[in-house]
């Protein structure tokens, strides 16, 4: 069953990295899509961690902190794009 989660993470990371990279090139706005690119990389990491066994608790905390930063980053982008 681990393999299912690994596949989901890998497929998701490929789609997100592909989507964000093409968007960076097409729209010529790297900063806007960089958080999504990072999310793709983090998902890729997650699939590797599942494959090699669950990482220690502090890694989970670090991973959660990174996702928190990314969400905050996305919020800032949304507000800026909306002009408020």
């Amino acid at each position: 069953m681990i393999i299912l989660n690994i596949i989901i993470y890998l497929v998701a990371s490929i789609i997100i990295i592909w989507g964000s990279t093409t968007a960076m090139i097409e729209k010529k706005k790297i900063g806007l899509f960089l958080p999504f690119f990072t999310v793709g990389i983090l998902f890729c990491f997650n699939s590797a961690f599942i494959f090699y066994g669950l990482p220690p608790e502090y890694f989970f905390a670090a991973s959660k902190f990174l996702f928190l930063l990314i969400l905050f980053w996305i919020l800032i982008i949304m507000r800026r794009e909306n002009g408020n």
Partner: protein
Amino acid sequence: MGKIRRKFKYLFTAGFLIIGIIGGVFLFAYNDYFYNTKIMNEISSNLIKVTEEKSEKINDYLEAIERDIKILQESDEIKEFLKEDLVVDESVIKMDVDERARIISKEIENYLRARPEMTLKKLQESSEFQEIAVQPVGSNGYSFLFDSQSLINYFHKEPRRIGYDYNTMEKTFPELWNMFKETSKKGFSEGFYYRDEPDGSTSYKYGKFVQIPVRTVDGVGMSVGTTAYVDDYKTIQKDSKYLKNFNKKKDYHNLVLISLEGYESYMVKIMGGFGTNLNWEINLKDGLSYNYFRVKEKQNIYFYGPYIGICGDINPKISVIAPVYESGELLGYVSLINEMDEIYEITEKITDISKTEEIYLVNMDGLLISSLKYSDLDIMVQSINTENVEECSKEGIIIADNYEGREILGSHKYIEKMGWCLLGEVDKNETINTPLRESTRRNLLILLPIVLILALIGFFTGDYFDKRYKEGKVREFPCGIKRKFQPWYCKLMGGDCVTYPKEKCGRVIKIRNFFANLKLGYLITVALILAIGYFFLINLFFDYIIYPLVTFGLLSLIISFFIFFQGFKLKYSRSKKYLFLGAGAIILYHLVHIPMEQYFNTVRPFNILYWTPTIILYILGFLFLLIFLRRSLK
């Protein structure tokens, strides 16, 4: 985002359904937590308590025996007895030899009945039969087999006697010859007689001769002779009222005095082994002999047991032996022997932990020594090599497989005096898993209609608002309470409060407008209230919180709320729905993931498959946000 108008019923149905499902997930999680932690802890502590209580009772019982043996150790009567000279006792040899003859003749009979095809020649070639036919009796005595009619010996300890014709002894040893003849006629005989020894001397012996009722296939009928030397059996020719009263009052099975040489020289109740020596080869397998050697070596009080006596005993016994001194000089040993009844009474006494509870004893070799409630494994035969036995010297409770391979909750207590392990076990499946399954099924049956009813309530409520909205009734505040809410609403929306109509019913309530106009401060307040409320809700279900996980999770939840509300502030665009979908999925992910993570880390880990739906939600959330950004930049 399309118009909210006419869509309230769908929104309310979905909302109420989600609330019901989340509530259900919480209920199931709590139920699982309750059975796996609270009930398991309760049963574990009860099991430990019962094991400790029973082991204390066993220890109290053993300590009472120890106190008694210490009293006897200092008893002047016993010291006087042990100082007495030992006397050769003819009645004792008779008792011992008769009992041995009975056992050996029965063993031979059983062997011949089980193998009716055996001829005399084959029997003589069989080492197995040789071991049964020629057995030690007393110190130097033995058993032998001879032809009942011809009186020719077929099996004997001394090779010179094999083939020997006992008819030749008619004149040299007439008492013995007469007994042989009597056995041929009557089937048995017994008596004292003189006999020549290999060194040429003559010894005084006692023998019992019994005809075996089964013949060999070639028609040979045999008799077994069991003989021992009279001089080997020694006792104290004295009786003690004090010791008899002591034994009767304390209800012991027996009280035995052992001489310095190892003779069981005095017994309150005459039983097998009386007058014999614990150093004899035949006695070495006996539990009393084992304990005697230990006490002899360490010169201290020792318990041993349970053991089965060598002379046709069937009840397991325990013995305690103490050395007896006078002015520093060792006089001999005193032993108390008791049956296991009282210990069995303690272990078998029913407690109310669980229907599947099993409390039993194993000895230092892992041998089962008390009966089991739910299995008919033989005591003193069956080995129990489980994790619960291995962990005996350690404190605590374990979850492991029992002797049948079933998963159990097990506690253990080491009983030092005897080297025993008292084990308490309850079936985990019966005690926890089955009630949990039943409770889950029951909750599911209750929850399903509740969730459906909630969805229906949501549908009808939404439908009601749809109709009201269509009729324009909710476009304004309900007149009854409008005055109270108008200033608050006006302030909240950041509207023009001066021109705000004060006398008429208020402005239109539009969810979209409400969130779009909501000030950032209020937005943060709402998000914080939701997050803190959620934090306390989680707190209710778990004993402790893993703060880094929950803190980051809750902060992510707040930010997800902000992103979601941001959607209301955006000008109308078709891609806005992706923002709502993305942020909504991330919010839902956090709502479900945080309690799951807590449960995984604080209660027990579960299958990784359960994470899959939340992972998909999270991935979809980011995907939708990415799509929103891509489309909104076109």
